[in-house]
């Protein structure tokens, strides 16, 4: 169809699914399992306490990225989806970080004594 060419976009069929094979899915899943194990392990490690929170944040974000990128195909999928989802995440994260900052910064909370 000439109109598609004029659009500069092609209708994509199943081509992108070939990026990842079941073997790779299993490999990703093993990595995810290992990360989870590490998370739980360092949770019980007293010496890891000072670095526990940043480590947990990084590890969970890695898991998040792996599932979204590989299992949900976002890494290979249409850029529209990437843009949408990442923009949504950015808005949501910034709104709620600001929201939490206001509560954590608030000094006026006072329970009944």
């Amino acid at each position, binding site marked *: *169809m000439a*109109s*598609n060419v004029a*659009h500069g*976009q*092609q*209708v*994509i*069929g*199943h081509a992108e*699914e070939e990026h990842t*094979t*079941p073997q790779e*899915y*299993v490999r*990703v*899943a093993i990595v*995810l*399992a290992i990360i*989870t194990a590490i*998370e*739980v392990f360092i*949770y*019980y490690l007293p010496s890891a*306490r000072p670095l*526990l*929170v940043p480590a*947990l*944040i990084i*590890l*969970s974000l890695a*898991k*998040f990225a792996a*599932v*979204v990128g*590989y*299992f*949900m195909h976002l890494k290979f999928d*249409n850029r*529209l*989806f990437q843009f*949408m*989802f990442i*923009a*949504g*995440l950015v*808005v*949501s*994260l910034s*709104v*709620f970080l600001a*929201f*939490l*900052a206001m*509560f*954590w*910064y608030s000094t006026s909370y006072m*329970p009944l004594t």
Partner: protein
Amino acid sequence: MATAITVETAHGEGQGIHEGHGHAGHPPPSAGVDSRKLLMWLFLTSDTMFFGTLIATYMMYRDRSIQLLTPPYPNDIFDIPYTSVSAFVLLMSSLTMVLALASIQRGNYRGLRIWLAATALLGGIFVGGQVFEFTTFAHEGLTLSSNVFGSSFYVLTGFHGAHVTIGVLWLVALLVVSLRGGLPKEKAMSVEIAGLYWHFVDIVWIIIFTFVYLVPYPNPVKEATEAAPAAFLHLVSLGQQMLAALPF
């Protein structure tokens, strides 16, 4: 409830490019993507705000019950090994889900059914585990109304559980359709969309597992007053000082 409707009603609509609605009047999708898949991604984008609100509320109330000295406290309630297994189960269900998708895309219907069933089963185990967890916690005195920890914990994990439950029902429905022969290779998109939903539910749990269960809580009494993030306060006061230093 919005969740259930949007997801389910998306079913079987739109100009799915695989579905052979080659009417001359219908131009191809102008963004080159499947409309239903686009709908699902939009829904998930919106759901980031949905769970963002729930998680942010939990984070805000996270330490408050400890500050107020209203037990039960998270430290006494949570059973990390148990929940780790739950989290692992849900994580692995994402693998089986993606294998189900890979199967239907290759026309392997037997594989599709096996993996769909496995995913639904793992999801079911997760929900069952959650029900068991809730009853145990309730036994230990943590209820919706016992303190704000209870309120925000149950509502957050409950909404997630409801998402998983809907997902399980959806997978079972797909399985039934597939067994009746209604899910040919051309309809792989139906599985892909269900998969997107399922994986999203999984990543929400990744966040919940970390921030609700693993990130440590202050000790009642001793650390109660040290909960505010000092580094952040410092940063804020820095901005304040900079503003005060302006010459006018």
